[in-house]
């Protein structure tokens, strides 16, 4: 085929729609990755302005700049914006933009989900900003501890804005996590086995896995607190058997992994950039992968180090202290691997290297104070003081902002196709680096001298005046530095000279494409034989552009990319991706309607939007798949591959498995909460007598068995799959009936006691899960009728079985848990 014609056709297939419609309908990972990063940068600017207000207030004792009410909103929003609206979306955008490019694919696994995530992020963030402008922003600190954040002490909508806005944004985090995981596992270059993946892919895989298990506890906590505020279910009220500590456990069960979720992608960028700058391969690839996985695992075992002063017994604290200290080891492995790589090579002192050296200085100091804070008796002194503020900024700015600034300069030529114009970047670096240390280094001392966090004023006699004043000077220096950085990026975008391909002489596949990249990334897809495909073949970019790789074709207007075997990377099938669509925008708007009706207290409207969301999701999945499979495709280079429609382990199946894993984590957190309140909270057992009940759990179990067996019969024999799907849906419905009957007949009103509140929450969650499972089975029933699912294309049957098995599984656990609880109370 004519090469020019190929590029022309691929451009037509992959480009966003023209004009305004394209703004709303784009599902391209390149477009959305950039949008995520730009939006996150804007929020960084807003969070930075809030930080300047904090430093203006604290520059002098007894400052009259702002009062405690406004100050509460400022520091709460500074933390919330930087964590949830800057750091997480920034790393998502980084992964969304880069991942398919480094893996040698044309897009992510679920392009429309990428778009949904961005709209949810934009709308949730906008809710937060509007609240800030309206003076009703959250004001209980970024970790929103109840009872302060509860209805009694925060009667306004302030806390609701946080709980609903952040949860809205978290939808995008979970969507991105599932998408990143499946993309790494399935969408890689031909023959890119797991051990030949670029190191950044390992980092992002660990990050995404942590997000799948880390975010559900926070989402659960937010739902429970919002339900408590809206309907008076006493999950966190001790007088009714709740416990404010339950929130702390759920929050930090998310909050500590969160720190590593933020750090790991940035560390991945360092592991990518440092070897290129040192002109030598990274040392210890296997050791680093092991360290990253160990870090991901360990980070879930140390959340209690945020709670050393809550009265937990000392020996239990010792366990969490040890786990917190151990996490320094995989970090040390990486630090020394990076230095060792530079030692072995011949480092070029380019602009990214300035920020990398800045990273080393700031992050190593932050890591060492982190080890100090893991030591219980020391933490009990400095906990909740400016020392902790200093530490967390050293870790997060050192571990995320400095590496991302290095990454920005490293990958800007890729995004814009232009080189840097002036030496503005160097000046920006020095302002940021000196300003940062001037702000936060002596803040350790301020904390040791006894200044607590979150005070809007302090007395002259305290002796913190000079320390605070210099911190404020440093903060404004930093602000100028970040302003210069933004200017530098804008100049590069407008005035930079066009760069040649692969300006850094890097080895990874994102540099084997034209810059700025076309929407289809590669005109034909690469085959790799090592971790350094560009040093194996310096002309790989030209070869791919000439259509010499796989799938160098544009047939039927389909967006095609290669899916591979998870372990070996052997080509497995051709994945066909959806094109531009307005569905993600409309779905996000329906979600937004739900969150707004909750926020405004129009509670009768919320269920309408839940039904609307179900309709949107039904329509969404209904537009996937096909009724006439094109059959095996000539993928080039001698490969004839089936399309994704006819594959057992399809991309949709893996996404469902991961979504169920996330949902299961939320369920496990809820069960944990139930037992936690039972064992730890005061005012248990609830007043009154409760007995065990068995009838309803038996009904639920019968429904569950029906659902599981019917789904199995349909999977085994396609002729029975239609009736099997109906029977499975009926089984789920029976389980729902049993759950509701049990709760209505045996549980007191949810406002009566935390026991009843958690019982109803468990019931509600089980009913919801069963309803999703029943809908999945009804959906697949329709799909058999419409000819989308046939014996040769059975994968939707398997996917539906995942959802319905999970739903009734949850139902059985909840039914028996509640049925037998009464006997023990």
């Amino acid at each position: 085929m004519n090469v020019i014609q190929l590029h022309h056709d691929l451009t037509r297939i992959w480009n966003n729609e023209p004009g305004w419609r394209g703004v709303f309908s784009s599902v391209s990972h390149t477009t959305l990755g950039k949008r995520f990063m730009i939006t996150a940068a804007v929020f960084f600017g807003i969070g930075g302005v809030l930080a300047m207000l904090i430093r203006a207030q604290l520059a002098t004792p007894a400052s009259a700049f702002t009062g405690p009410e406004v100050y509460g909103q400022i520091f709460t929003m500074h933390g919330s914006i930087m964590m949830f609206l800057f750091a997480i979306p920034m790393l998502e955008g980084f992964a969304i933009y880069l991942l398919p490019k480094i893996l040698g694919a044309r897009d992510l696994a679920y392009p429309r989900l990428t778009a949904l995530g961005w709209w949810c992020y934009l709308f949730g963030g906008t809710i937060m900003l509007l609240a800030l402008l309206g003076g009703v922003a959250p004001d209980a600190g970024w970790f929103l501890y109840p009872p302060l954040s509860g209805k009694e002490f925060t009667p306004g909508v302030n806390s609701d804005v946080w709980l609903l806005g952040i949860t809205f944004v978290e939808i995008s985090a979970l969507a991105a996590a599932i998408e990143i995981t499946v993309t790494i596992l399935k969408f890689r270059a031909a023959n890119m086995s797991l051990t030949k993946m670029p190191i950044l892919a390992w980092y992002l895989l660990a990050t995404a896995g942590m997000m799948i298990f880390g975010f559900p506890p926070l989402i659960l906590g937010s739902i429970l607190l919002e339900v408590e505020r809206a309907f008076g279910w006493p999950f966190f009220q001790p007088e009714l058997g709740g416990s404010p500590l339950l929130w702390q456990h759920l929050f930090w069960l998310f909050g500590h992994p969160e720190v590593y979720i933020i750090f790991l992608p940035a560390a991945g960028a360092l592991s990518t950039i440092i070897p290129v700058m040192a002109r030598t391969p990274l040392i210890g690839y296997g050791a680093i992968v092991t360290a990253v996985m160990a870090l991901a695992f360990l980070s879930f075992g140390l959340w209690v180090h945020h709670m050393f002063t809550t009265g937990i017994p000392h020996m239990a604290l010792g366990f969490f202290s040890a786990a917190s200290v151990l996490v320094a080891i995989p970090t040390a492995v990486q630090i020394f691997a990076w230095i060792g790589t530079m030692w072995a090579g011949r480092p070029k002192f380019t602009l990214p290297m300035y920020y990398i050296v800045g990273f080393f200085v700031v992050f190593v100091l932050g890591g060492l104070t982190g080890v100090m804070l893991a030591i219980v008796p020391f933490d009990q002194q400095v906990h909740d003081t400016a020392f902790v503020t200093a530490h967390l900024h050293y870790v997060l700015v050192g571990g995320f902002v400095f590496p991302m600034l290095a990454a920005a300069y490293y990958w800007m030529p890729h995004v814009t196709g232009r080189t840097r114009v002036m030496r503005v970047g160097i000046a920006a670096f020095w302002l940021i680096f000196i300003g940062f240390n001037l702000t936060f280094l002596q803040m350790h001392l301020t904390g040791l001298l006894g200044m607590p966090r979150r005070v809007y004023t302090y007395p002259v006699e305290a002796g913190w005046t000079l320390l605070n004043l210099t911190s404020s000077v440093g903060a404004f220096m930093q602000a100028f530095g970040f302003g210069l950085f933004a200017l530098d990026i804008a100049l590069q975008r407008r005035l930079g000279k066009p760069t040649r391909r692969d300006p850094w002489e890097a080895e990874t596949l994102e540099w084997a494409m034209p810059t700025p990249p076309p929407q289809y990334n590669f005109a034909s897809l690469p085959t790799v034989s090592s971790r350094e495909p560009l040093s194996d073949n310096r002309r790989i970019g030209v070869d791919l552009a000439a259509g010499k790789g796989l799938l160098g074709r544009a047939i039927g207007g389909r967006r095609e990319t290669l899916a591979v075997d998870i372990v070996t990377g052997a080509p497995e099938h051709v994945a066909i991706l959806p094109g531009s669509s307005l569905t993600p925008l409309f779905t996000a708007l329906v979600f937004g309607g739900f969150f707004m009706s909750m926020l405004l207290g129009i509670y009768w409207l919320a269920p309408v939007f839940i039904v609307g969301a179900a309709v949107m999701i039904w329509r969404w999945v209904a537009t996937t798949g096909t009724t006439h499979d094109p059959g095996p495709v000539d993928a080039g280079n001698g490969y004839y591959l089936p399309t994704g429609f006819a594959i057992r382990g399809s991309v949709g199946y893996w996404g469902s498995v991961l979504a169920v894993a996330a949902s299961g984590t939320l369920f496990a957190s809820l069960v944990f909460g139930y037992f936690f309140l039972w064992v730890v909270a005061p005012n248990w057992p609830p007043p009154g007598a409760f007995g065990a009940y068995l009838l309803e759990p038996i009904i639920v179990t019968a429904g569950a068995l029906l659902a599981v067996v019917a789904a199995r019969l349909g999977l085994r024999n396609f002729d029975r799959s239609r009736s099997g799907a109906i029977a499975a849906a009926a089984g789920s419905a029976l389980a729902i009936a049993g759950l509701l009957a049990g709760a209505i007949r045996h549980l007191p009103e949810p406002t009566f006691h935390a026991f009843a509140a958690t019982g109803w929450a468990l019931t509600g969650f089980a009913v919801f899960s069963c309803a999703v499972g029943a809908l999945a089975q009804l959906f697949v029933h329709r799909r058999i009728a419409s000819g989308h699912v046939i014996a040769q294309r059975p994968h939707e049957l398997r996917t539906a079985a995942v959802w319905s098995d999970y739903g009734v599984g949850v139902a059985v656990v909840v039914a028996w848990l509640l049925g037998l609880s009464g006997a023990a109370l």
Partner: protein
Amino acid sequence: MRVADLWWWMLGGSAILSALVFILLLIALRRRGAADNRQPGRTRVWIGWLGLVMPVGVLMVLLAFALWVGQRNLPVGPAAQTVQVTAFNYGWEFCYEDGSCSQGVLRIPAGQPVDLDITATDVIHSLWIPRLAGKMDAIPGQVNRLRIEADAPGTFEAVCAEYCGVGHADHRFVVEAYAAGAPAGRTEAAE
């Protein structure tokens, strides 16, 4: 061994470790390596010895040391007296064994261990007397015990360390340690 000593030891250790890292980094940046990192020995030195063995060694010693300090700070034996502490927006109430109570001023005998049984009536607060002990949270619905001991008579400033609302910055009290055996003045000052 006091917490302050722990801090100085940790500061010293951190200074040595960060100096090590920064010096290695500086040499690595200035050195002209031969790109010979394919030698297995190099990985062993950087990742095995520096990345793994050194931190494991340092951290094990630190952990053992810290656990020992922490255990020594735990209440051992009976306290001379127990004070019921209640934190609220925005004040502190102290009730003593003789049934008297005071607000804003905690009076304890110097040179004797005193247990504080701390709770809160509204939101979470945190009791912190920087010169006497670490923090202990005041949490509604639960009682946390903290042991303090003032070596000599005197006045000690105390603050609320957990954000508790608009009055948090001024949510303070003072501790007055009186010479043991002269407990006069406690009841008369009670509010």
